[in-house]
């Protein structure tokens, strides 16, 4: 859908519609979103994807300067919606990323914003509001549309909590914690990371100290709440 730019004139480019990429694991939802967006003047669906990896691939194939990527928060597995948002943010810094959820908890919204989303839209809103939110995101505006708009303060608190835990741990400590979240022993973590077991226990002790907790479970709970590690199924 990316169209060749060779014989395009400035005029046709100026009236070009805002491109949207739709990422949602459910085919029916995806089709509904795409149809709705296509029917709106000024918007066009450039591509659709059902998983995070597929999304990275199709977004990479888009040749546009202004793109809005709609990411449903329901992607599960290792490469969940948060992973996708973070990766899109790193690889395509100029594109707008909108999280898309249903009656989302402020925790979900703050985590999505923290990993790089430019806004959050709830599926539980009127159609014109939904389309307006996409257009605002295309204009580089921050949008929070739907029930989450009433929790701006809580969302900001959630971001602050993530930030404060994130600031305290080094990259290596975060890696250790992420592997520890899989339930491995210190020896297994050491093997995985290619370091000595002693080094791992030192890292863990330092992590507990920084987070002000006494054991691994408490550290993991805190890290999970701050979005540093994922435990169990995706939110």
């Amino acid at each position, binding site marked *: 859908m990316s169209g060749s730019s060779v014989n395009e004139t400035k005029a046709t480019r100026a009236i070009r519609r805002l491109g949207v990429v739709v990422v949602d694991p459910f085919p029916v939802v995806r089709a509904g979103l795409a149809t709705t967006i296509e029917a709106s003047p000024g918007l066009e669906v450039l591509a659709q994807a059902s998983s995070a990896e597929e999304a990275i691939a199709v977004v990479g194939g888009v040749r546009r300067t202004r793109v809005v990527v709609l990411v449903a928060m329901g992607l599960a597995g290792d490469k969940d919606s948060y992973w996708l948002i973070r990766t899109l943010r790193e690889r395509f810094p100029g594109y707008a990323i909108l999280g898309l959820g249903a009656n989302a908890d402020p925790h979900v919204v*703050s985590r999505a*914003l*923290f*990993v*790089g989303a*430019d*806004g959050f839209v709830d599926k539980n809103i009127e159609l014109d509001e939904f389309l307006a939110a996409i257009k605002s995101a295309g204009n580089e*505006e*921050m*949008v*929070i549309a739907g029930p989450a*708009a*009433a929790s*701006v*303060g809580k*969302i*900001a*608190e959630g*971001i*602050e909590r*993530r*930030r404060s835990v*994130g*600031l305290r*741990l*080094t*990259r290596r400590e*975060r890696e250790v914690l992420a592997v520890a979240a899989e339930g491995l022993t210190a020896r297994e973590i050491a093997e995985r990371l290619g370091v000595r077991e002693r080094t791992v226990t030192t890292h863990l002790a330092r992590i507990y100290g920084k987070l002000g907790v006494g054991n691994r479970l408490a550290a993991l709970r805190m890290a999970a709440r701050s979005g540093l590690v994922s435990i169990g199924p995706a939110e």
Partner: protein
Amino acid sequence: MAGRPHTHLAFRLSGSLAGMDVVHAVVAAGHPVVRSVIDIACREAGVTVLAKVETASAAIEACRSRRPELLVLDLELPDADGFRVLSELDDVDRPAAVLVLSDHAEGDLVLRALRLGARGYVTKAEGLRDLSSTITRVLAGERVIAPGMEQDAVLALGRFARRAREGAEVAAHLTSREHQVLELLSDGHTMRQIATRLGISPRTVETHVAKVYRKLGVRTRVQAVSRAATLGLVEL
């Protein structure tokens, strides 16, 4: 009230105090005129005012000892800003409903008030005219933010999220040593002083500083300190 009706964006929240027999309030405002306007508005809204105070410290004290259900709080207080009152009160002592009044209509301030648990934010220029109805709505569990400021708060949230993300990213790339060096730099220590403090050679400090600058994407110490403060890596 004589004033023209004034539209506010409102959201229904849980925690309505509307069913209570009598609502008690503490009023905190720096200026005596503002204090009495709030006092009158509270009475119009059927709220009993327990205390009218001028300073942040008196407001904290009054909330702790009198346990009001409502706090009407002017951000511009003589001894500290009103945020101080909200951040010093723990969840038990913080009144269920907090209405903030301010001279300034800025998204960052609204966001900060909301983060600290405020349920309403109106400006003194616009909001004093229909304050009693605002008080009634806040007590009914509505969130009342002056027109236009809702979106400003969302924009502020976006900036806040970006800074938090960048800060955490940069922090993850700094070693513990580099972090120490950055903190000492921000405290205004010279390279030589930092070297003595950390028991390393000035040459090593220079290497650390160069790496910190590179990771922060800056060239000078002033830029480094200001960038680090913006990202929340150090406190000034």
